[in-house]
Each structure stands twice: as structure tokens, then as C-alpha cells.
């Protein structure tokens, strides 16, 4: 919403306002001021009438224009393509005039200058040359009918200089969608009285006929018939004001409705009465199958929730409060109009505007709530403006289907004190509320408040508390700290942060990627995610962001690819984030889990020589350390995830066999589909699936020395080291406390096909004595025999 400082000043009894000060007042009142822009900072420019024009003898594109400033005729050189006919008027910046044509809109004083050999005393001005807009398409032309007389000082006659404030009006303040409402706030802020125009009695004429069939949708409808109109352009002053406020001038009639709306916040609509069968208006909801061609030329299908304006033949002529119909539009030839000023229900207007995706200045205001009790004022004000174009009011009628009375509220002054922390007596609170036009009666510590209908947002005591606080000033509230009460911590959250710290320590940087990903990426992952197993966004920004991720892997792979493309050869990234799996119904919250995932590609750190490429076991080491830090033990068991290399992957299983994640080499085809040409290692683990970790107790440090023995043997390749370790553990060899693989050697020139050569290291120890050689020898022999017998291991 843009407001003109000049207009605000006029509404405040001709006060001269300072833009910065008004911005301060409005900001403190809760109306955000997004910008303040000076407009039309010029002087020494006069209205001049074109008395003659001829081409410049030496330049095709230049015109020599004779202009009359009320006393003399002067020849000015003009480069614009649109020099008007004799009798029209233009704006002439005479030598000595100051115009904002310098850098950054600085004022420049004009001097006579030679234009292709002919002296030009000043110039005829285009919009941009006066700081009135961006357009340099041509000079400003004033119709002969415009009342501006030659010689008039343009700045004062057109209402400049002005300052335009761009306001961010919150949806609860429809009253500030018009200059009157904004002026009321400024007055309260300045501590001066404000008298808004009073609505008074409506027009009780018998014509036109108004039939409101839906009082819920339309509580009041005011119609004025005006005749004798001459439709034409608005006076330049009005056109410039509208343009300054971001509204395109159209014709005097339409411009009047717009100006009235900008003043009062009440939308109006004018119908060409000669396109109607008579001065009859019916307000009703749409019937199935009805259509209307709206002003923008689009034929709209109507539905029964749409509130309509219909003519005496019950034909649709407008979508109430949203947009008028093409057929009854005011045109250049219109002579008689029916002017509508009405109150429509916010919900009805919003439903239609939303459904049609059609947001107009009118619907924007009706959706938020327009004061039902200024209708007659606005109608008369508009009629008064139209009188300048020959219009006479021949009939007017104000039909109130459902009177809307002011709301009565009670405010306990103590309640304000409690909620705000301010010490404010009832008297002071009453003053604040009165300053914005509320009726207040004091009754001890209680305020009986009458809320005028222009403030539909004030319906409860708490709303009045806010008004008092706002008007007193948020900055006046003393600072306090609420008393402290402790509460238990959130454990799951700590687990996620623990995982972050561990992966940091292990060399991984944290990435955050979007929770919505491309369905194609998820498909590339070939995760167990057919279409119906993905949470989809109904209105995504783009197709690549339309599926909620079922895995963090695609985001990390894309991120890694991007890093590689930017020359980062050693990528170590992790992410902690949510994944989403739909449940039975799409209206049920999906299963949301917190996962941690990482990607690693590149080389191990080498020192003064290139490092070796990282492999599965580097990642396995990271996962093991992460598990230790999270105080869990994962067993790696066989898995066959389609997104991982078929021979280099494993599932992470808890003691009870529950699989909580996977690790391995990313399947090269999946990598390629996601834009990564490099071998990459990934793991993903569900933190949500982890049970609470047990608090570990310390183990005794051994007091007696251990003895180590190695054994090297050939064994079938399929026997995994986990299986061998399990078998050894099951043997219950006395004194054996640890068995660890040291070598896995598979060179086919030295090892028989189907076999691998392994070196294991075994540790023997007793808790109560130092072992003798004989004891160790005995135990180790027992182990070797058992290895051969149970696993077919052949000692080398």
C-alpha cells in the first residue's frame, strides 16, 4: 500500500508533514514503512498552452513549439515525438527552473541552450524529467478540458513535491488500506485530534431497486445513478497522484472510483447504466453453469460459492468485490453510470479470488474487511468528484440488509499491566484507546470500549491490550527475566549433535541439503521407493524439488559432484536430516526419521607423496568409530542394496539383528545418474532407529602380561572374517582373549583358487597370573586344531 504524504497532510487539516517523522510514527504504530521516496521535486515549471508547432529546419526529430504562458508566446525546441495539437497544454520548464535530472535525482537549474542552431529557452517536460515517474516516452500532455490555466505554477497545482511511503500493512489492519486510516494513526502518533468523515444517514431514495438475496454475503449495498457524464481523461493532477500511488490512470470515471478507494479503503465499481436493462441490482450467489466475461476479457466459470452482482434480468454483471464484467464496463462513450459502494463478506470474496487466482485491489481489501459504515460517505464523495465531469445524481439508494453494529468490549486495566509488564493506570489506557477513535467509558479499573466498525480486528480484550501497548510504545516496557525452572533434556537431539561432533572429528564437513529432492534422483537410487512410497509435494517450485527424500544419499552425491566439478578432489561430507516415508494414507503424518549419512571420495591423506585412494575399509573405520562414540556396536552383515556396489556393501545390524543402516561403495551407475563420475563411499544410518545406549561401566585394566601368537592359514574365500571370528569365539579356547585378522591375501599366483590366505593374531592372558610358555603353547595348539577341524583352515 502506497500513501502520499501530501494527501495525509490534507486529511490532517492541511498539515505539513515530514516523511521521515511520519515513517517513524507509523513504524512505532506497527505499520511497516518499506520505503520513503521523494516525488516531483521541481520548481519553476509552468503550465503552457501550445499555440503552434513546426518542424526544426535542420533536424527531423525536433519540433519548434510556440507555447503561451498566460502572458507571452515563446518558441521552445522539443525532441519528443508526441507534441500535442494547438489548444493542448504542456509543462514548460523555463530557464531558471530546477528539475531533478542530475545524478541520483539531484536538482539541475536550466539555462537557455542551442539545439541544432536554434536557442531553446528551457524545455517541455516528460514524466521522468520532473521526477514523476520512469517514462521518457513523450512529454506530458494536458487536455484542453483540464482546468489548469496557462501560467499556473505546476508544482503547487499538481500537489508536488510529495513523498510516497510504501507501507507493509499486516492483514489485521484493513483500515490502513486507505489514506483516512493511515491519517488516523499519524494523528494518534502526533497527539493531535482526527476527525474522519461521518457516515450519517444513507440515501433513502426509492430508485434504483436493490435486492440483496444473500445478506450474509452482502450486508449493505449503496447504488447511485449519475447522468450527463462526459468520459475522458482525468485532470493531470489526479492522473499523477494515481500514478504516484501505483494505479494506472484509465478514465475520469474509473479514476474517481480508484481515488475514493485509496482515500477510504472502500472499493467502488461503476457500471455503464445504458448496458443494463434498468436501474436494478440483484446480489446473489452463483448458480451452476453460469459464466461471466470479466474486465480482463477472460470468461470465468462460476460456482455456487461466488457472490454475484446481477442486473434486473438476473444476468451476471460482476463478480462481487473481485472484478466487474466486460459487458457493463464504462467506456469512452458512457453517459450514465450506476455507482456501486457495498459491503461484502470477507470469506465470500476470498473464496472467489483464491479459486480464480484473481487478486484485485478491491478483493484484497474486502478479504481483510472493509468498514460497512462508511459506504454512504464514500458514495457521496465519489459523486461529488464526478460532478466535475458533468455528472448529476438522479437517484441514490442505500440498502442495508444486515446492520453491523460496533463491538462492545471490556478491558481490565490490570490485565494490561499483567501482560505488558507496564505500570499504566486506567485513565492513561483510556486516553490511548480514544486517540485512535475508540469510544471509552471508565468504570473504576475497567474500560468499557466501543470499537468502531473500521477496526474489525479488535474483537477481544487482548486486542485492546495490544492497542494500549502499541500506543504507549514497546520501548517503554521495562526489561525483566522470568524466574527459572529446570526441565529434562531432549536425548534424541543430543544424539544427533553427538554424531555431528564425531564425524567432525573424523574429518567430515557438515552439509545441509534440501529435504525435497528430484523424484528422478530417488528413482536413480533405486531405493525401495516406488511412486506410492514417496511423500510428494502438491505444489512444488519445480519438478526437481517435488519429492520428500527417503534417503540423504542423493543430496550428498549431488553435493559431492558439485564439489568435484569445482576442483575439490577430496570430498568428505556428512548430513544429519530427516527422511520421509508415507504411511497408509496420504493424510496421515509420514514416518519421519532422523538419519545421518556421509560420502567420502578422493585419497587418504598422504605426506609429501600422493595418498592412496580411499576404500571401503576407510569408511568402515569411520562407521566403527562413529558407532563407538554413539555407544553402539554394529555388526556388518551381508546386504544387497541396489544403490551400492554388489560386492562392496554391508548392512549395519544391531545385536538383535535390526538393520539400522548401510555402508559401501556407491553403485557406479547410481553415481553416474546423479552426476558423479568418481568412485565414492557412502553410509547412511538411522539415528531414530537406535535404542538408548547403555551407560558403559569401566573394565579392569589387565594386571598380568598377555602373550601373542600368530597363525597363518589358507581358508575358503566365502568364509568372512566375521564368521571366522564367531567360530573362534564359539570354540571357547581357554585363556584366549582376542583374535584379530592381520592379513587377507588373495593373489591367485600364490593362493589356490577359491581360497584366501589369512594371518590372524591371537592374544592369551590369565587374569590371576603370568602365563607360562607351556600354557600358551597348549592353548594355541588346541586353537589351530579346532580351526582346521571346524573351518577347514590349512595352516601354512
Amino acid at each position, binding site marked *: 500500500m502506497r500513501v502520499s504524504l501530501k494527501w495525509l497532510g490534507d486529511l490532517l487539516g492541511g498539515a505539513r508533514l515530514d516523511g521521515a517523522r511520519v515513517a517513524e510514527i507509523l513504524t512505532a504504530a506497527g505499520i511497516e514503512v518499506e520505503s520513503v521516496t521523494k516525488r516531483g521535486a521541481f520548481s519553476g515549471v509552468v503550465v503552457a498552452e501550445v499555440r503552434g508547432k513546426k518542424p526544426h529546419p535542420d533536424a527531423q526529430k525536433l519540433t519548434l513549439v510556440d507555447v503561451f504562458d498566460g502572458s507571452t508566446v515563446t518558441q521552445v525546441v522539443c525532441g519528443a515525438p508526441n507534441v500535442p495539437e494547438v489548444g493542448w497544454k504542456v509543462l514548460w520548464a523555463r530557464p531558471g527552473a530546477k528539475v531533478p535530472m542530475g545524478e541520483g535525482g539531484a536538482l539541475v537549474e536550466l539555462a537557455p541552450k542551442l539545439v541544432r542552431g536554434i536557442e531553446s529557452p528551457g524545455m517541455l517536460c516528460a514524466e521522468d524529467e520532473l521526477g514523476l515517474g520512469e517514462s521518457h516516452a513523450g512529454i506530458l500532455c494536458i487536455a484542453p478540458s483540464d482546468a489548469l490555466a496557462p501560467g499556473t505554477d505546476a508544482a503547487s497545482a499538481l500537489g508536488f513535491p510529495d513523498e510516497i511511503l510504501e507501507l507493509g500493512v499486516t492483514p489485521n489492519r484493513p483500515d490502513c488500506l486507505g489514506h483516512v486510516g493511515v491519517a488516523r494513526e499519524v494523528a494518534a502518533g502526533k497527539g493531535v485530534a482526527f476527525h474522519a468523515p461521518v457516515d450519517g444517514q444513507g440515501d433513502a431514495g426509492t430508485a434504483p431497486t436493490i435486492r440483496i438475496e444473500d445478506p450474509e454475503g452482502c450486508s449493505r449495498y449503496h447504488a447511485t445513478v449519475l447522468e450527463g457524464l462526459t468520459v475522458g481523461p482525468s485532470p493531470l493532477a489526479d492522473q499523477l497522484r494515481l500514478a504516484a500511488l501505483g494505479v494506472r490512470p484509465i478514465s475520469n470515471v474509473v479514476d474517481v472510483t480508484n481515488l475514493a478507494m485509496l482515500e477510504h479503503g472502500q472499493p467502488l465499481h461503476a457500471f455503464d447504466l445504458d448496458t443494463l436493462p434498468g436501474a436494478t441490482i440483484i446480489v446473489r450467489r452463483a448458480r451452476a453453469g453460469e459464466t461471466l466475461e470479466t474486465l480482463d476479457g477472460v470468461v470465468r466459470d462460476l460456482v455456487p460459492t461466488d457472490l454475484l452482482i446481477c442486473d434486473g434480468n438476473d444476468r451476471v454483471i460482476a463478480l462481487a468485490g473481485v472484478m466487474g464484467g466486460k459487458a457493463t464496463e464504462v467506456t469512452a462513450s458512457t453517459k450514465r453510470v450506476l455507482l456501486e459502494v457495498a459491503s461484502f463478506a470477507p*470469506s465470500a470474496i476470498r473464496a472467489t479470488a483464491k479459486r480464480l487466482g484473481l487478486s484485485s485491489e478491491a478483493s484484497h481489501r474486502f478479504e481483510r474487511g472493509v468498514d460497512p459504515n462508511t459506504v454512504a460517505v464514500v458514495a457521496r464523495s465519489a459523486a461529488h468528484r464526478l460532478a466535475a465531469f458533468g455528472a448529476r445524481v438522479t437517484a441514490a439508494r442505500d440498502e442495508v440488509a444486515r446492520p453491523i453494529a460496533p463491538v462492545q468490549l471490556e478491558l481490565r486495566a490490570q490485565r494490561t499491566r499483567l501482560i505488558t509488564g507496564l505500570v499504566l493506570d486506567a485513565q492513561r489506557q483510556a486516553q490511548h484507546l480514544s486517540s485512535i477513535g475508540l469510544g471509552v467509558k471508565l468504570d473504576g479499573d475497567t474500560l468499557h470500549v466501543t470499537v468502531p466498525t473500521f477496526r474489525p480486528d479488535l474483537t477481544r480484550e487482548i486486542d485492546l491490550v495490544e492497542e494500549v501497548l502499541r500506543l504507549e510504545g514497546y520501548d517503554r516496557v521495562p526489561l525483566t527475566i522470568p524466574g*527459572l525452572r529446570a526441565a529434562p533434556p531432549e536425548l534424541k537431539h543430543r544424539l544427533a*549433535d553427538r554424531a555431528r561432533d564425531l564425524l567432525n572429528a573424523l574429518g567430515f564437513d557438515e552439509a545441509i541439503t534440501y529435504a525435497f529432492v528430484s523424484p528422478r534422483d530417488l528413482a536413480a537410487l533405486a531405493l525401495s521407493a516406488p511412486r506410492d512410497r514417496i511423500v510428494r509435494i502438491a505444489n512444488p517450485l519445480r519438478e526437481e524439488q517435488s519429492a520428500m527424500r527417503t534417503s540423504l544419499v542423493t543430496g550428498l552425491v549431488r553435493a559431492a559432484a558439485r564439489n568435484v566439478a569445482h576442483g575439490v578432489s577430496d570430498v568428505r561430507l556428512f548430513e544429519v536430516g530427516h527422511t520421509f516415508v508415507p504411511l497408509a494414507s496420504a493424510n496421515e503424518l509420514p514416518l519421519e526419521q532422523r538419519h545421518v549419512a556421509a560420502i567420502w571420495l578422493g585419497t587418504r591423506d598422504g605426506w609429501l607423496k600422493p595418498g592412496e585412494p580411499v576404500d571401503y575399509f576407510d569408511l568402515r573405520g569411520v562407521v566403527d568409530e562413529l558407532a563407538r562414540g554413539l555407544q553402539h556396536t554394529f555388526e556388518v552383515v551381508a546386504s544387497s542394496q541396489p544403490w551400492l556396489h554388489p560386492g562392496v556393501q554391508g548392512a549395519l545390524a544391531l545385536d538383535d539383528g535390526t538393520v539400522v543402516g548401510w555402508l559401501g561403495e556407491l553403485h557406479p551407475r547410481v553415481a553416474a545418474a546423479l552426476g558423479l563420475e568418481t568412485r565414492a563411499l557412502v553410509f547412511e544410518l538411522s539415528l531414530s532407529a537406535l535404542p538408548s545406549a547403555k551407560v558403559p561401566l569401566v573394565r579392569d585394566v589387565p594386571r598380568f602380561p598377555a602373550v601373542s601368537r600368530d597363525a597363518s592359514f589358507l581358508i575358503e574365500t566365502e568364509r568372512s572374517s566375521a564368521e571366522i571370528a564367531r567360530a573362534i569365539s564359539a570354540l571357547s579356547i581357554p585363556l584366549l582373549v582376542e583374535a584379530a585378522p592381520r592379513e587377507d591375501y588373495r593373489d591367485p599366483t600364490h593362493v589356490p583358487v577359491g581360497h584366501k590366505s589369512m594371518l590372524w593374531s591371537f592374544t592369551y592372558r590369565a587374569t590371576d597370573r603370568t602365563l607360562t610358555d607351556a600354557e600358551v603353547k597348549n592353548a594355541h595348539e588346541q586353537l589351530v586344531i579346532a580351526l582346521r577341524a571346524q573351518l577347514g583352515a590349512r595352516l601354512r
Partner: protein
Amino acid sequence: MTGNAASSEQLRSALDALVAEFRTRMSAASDEQVVRKVYADFGGPQGSIRVAQKNALKAAPGPEKRAIGELGNAYLKDIDALFEERLRGIAAEAGERDLARRIDVTLPGRQHRRGHLHPVTIVRRELEEIFAQLGFVVAEGPEVETDFHNFEALAVPKHHPARDMQDTFYVAGDDGKPGDLVLRTHTSPVQIRTMLANKPPVRIVAPGAVFRKDDDPTHSPMFHQIEGLCVDEGVSFGDLKGVLLHFVRRLLGDDMGIRLRPSFFPFTEPSAELDISCVFCRGKGCRTCKHTGWVEIGGAGMVDPEVFRHVGYDSEKYTGFAFGFGLERMAMLRFGIDDIKELYLSDQRLLSQFESKVWP
């Protein structure tokens, strides 16, 4: 007597010769291994001195054996001392040689790469820590939310213009059209979940990802907020101001200030926009703050009685405040990042620059 003297003398001269040879060879030995070898050759079980002693003992008649034994042992003791001394000497020489070692200390070290937290995580944790000191615990909620938790219970009914304040992503229903689920547009639904599950007093902060259908140079369709909620008897707007000023000063410095501007949110009343002193010019006015000295970081206010009604709290007995602001915005201010989009590029060259604040 003569026999005794003769065998003693014989042994003594033999051992004198051996010890002389031992000394010569020992001083020629330059490393520990040789020294031990030399010692073994003379003083070891098969060493020449022991052999000479053994032979002399064998040859000597009974009464002389004791003297012969003692004589040999005295010599053995001597060479033990010489051996130990030579070992110390060797160790000292080795120590000297080691001290003569020189390396290029300016070469880079072996890497022990440490990863880095995302700036959003860093700021979130700092905030959680500050609020924890004020008794706020961390609460969380789902990112896909019901319309009820995200809007309805927060006093944003369907068909209300306030819905336009936040462009919402809807989850597709079974028919592909927008259903009853949304990607949460703010962390405020966590307020609702917390209050529905707990009786007052409540004091939480709720950090997390939120989503808005907004994608331009200054907006990211996913970003993070942290929400605060404090409900108890007698909680006032003054408490809100006190808590906000405390956190801003702890996070950004004691010279920071806050400004609350009246505003509108459906779920708070009174409502305020929260401005903090411009971090770059400290309130003097610069390009970042458009010369106002202030930058907006979030919203705050007193919990609307309508919200209490939805969660079954008695708004006559309890009052509360809530606040929320963008973590990206805080991170951008903290680290001097210009473009929010950079936080989502996962570029390691950027990510590896961020360090947590070292508290003074």
C-alpha cells in the same frame, strides 16, 4: 704354599693379559651390539675370563679353590664395571649424535583433518546453550505437519488472509491434490505439540528446518528457525524483552541492542518484529542496515489466548511469550555471509571455514 702361589700368580697374569685385551677391544667398539659381543667374549658364560677361571679352579687343589674363585670374581667385577661404563659412553655418544640431527621444520605437517559444522548448526548450538542457561530445553517436531498444528491451532484458520503471509508447500493427497498435510512453514507447531503434551510451566526452544514456497536471491525454499516458548503464571512482555536482549548480547556482544516494533502474527498478541543493532556498524548505520542501524531478525509476542484455547491452557491463569527467528539470518550476520543460497551449496571450500565461537 708355593703351589698355591704359583697357580694364583699364573691366573693373575693370564687374567691381566685378558683384561688388557678386553680394554683394547672395548674402547674400539663403537656401538652397543659390538660392546655386548666383546663383553660376552670375555665375561659371558663362555667368555675367556670365565673359562680361564673355570680351568684354574679345576686345576687347583681343594684348599686353594676359594682363593682362585675370589680372584676370578674380582676380575669379572672389573670388566663388568668397564662394560657398564662403555655402555653409558655409547649411549651418551648416541645422544650427542641425535642432537646433531637437523630437519626442515618448515615443511607442512601430516594432516589430521578435522571436519566443520555447518554455520546453521553452529549458531543453533550457541543459541541452545544461551537459552539453556535460562532454563529453556530443546523440543522438536516433524517437518511434515498437519494443517491443524501448523495453522489452525495457531489461530490461522482456513480462508484467512493471514495464510497469505506464508507461502505454503502442501503434501499431495491420495488424489495428487493438496491434502491436509503441509511442509511446516515455521517451527511454531512445536509450541502446539509441546503444550498439548505438557502442562504449564513450559519453557522450550525448538530449532528446525522450515519450508516456504519462496525462491529468490534472498530466500531459500528451505531454511531454519528457532522458536522459543515460555508459559507460566505472570509471564509478561517485559520478560520477553529481557530474554531477547540477553540472548542477543550473549551471542553477538554486550554493545548490542534490540528494538521491538508492533506487528501482527495470528498466534501472538501483542506481536512484535524483532530488530537487533546492525552487527556490522553496531548501530551507526551502514549499507547492510540501509542506514537505519537496525536489522530485522524475527518475530515475537505474547501467546494469543486463542492458541491457549486450542491446547487447553487457561489463559486467565497463564500467560506466555513466544519468539522465532531465522538461523540462516543469524549465521549470515555472525559470519558475514551475503547470500543465503551459499549455505545450501555444500561447497567444502566454504564449509571448512566455519568455527564455533570460542567463549571468552
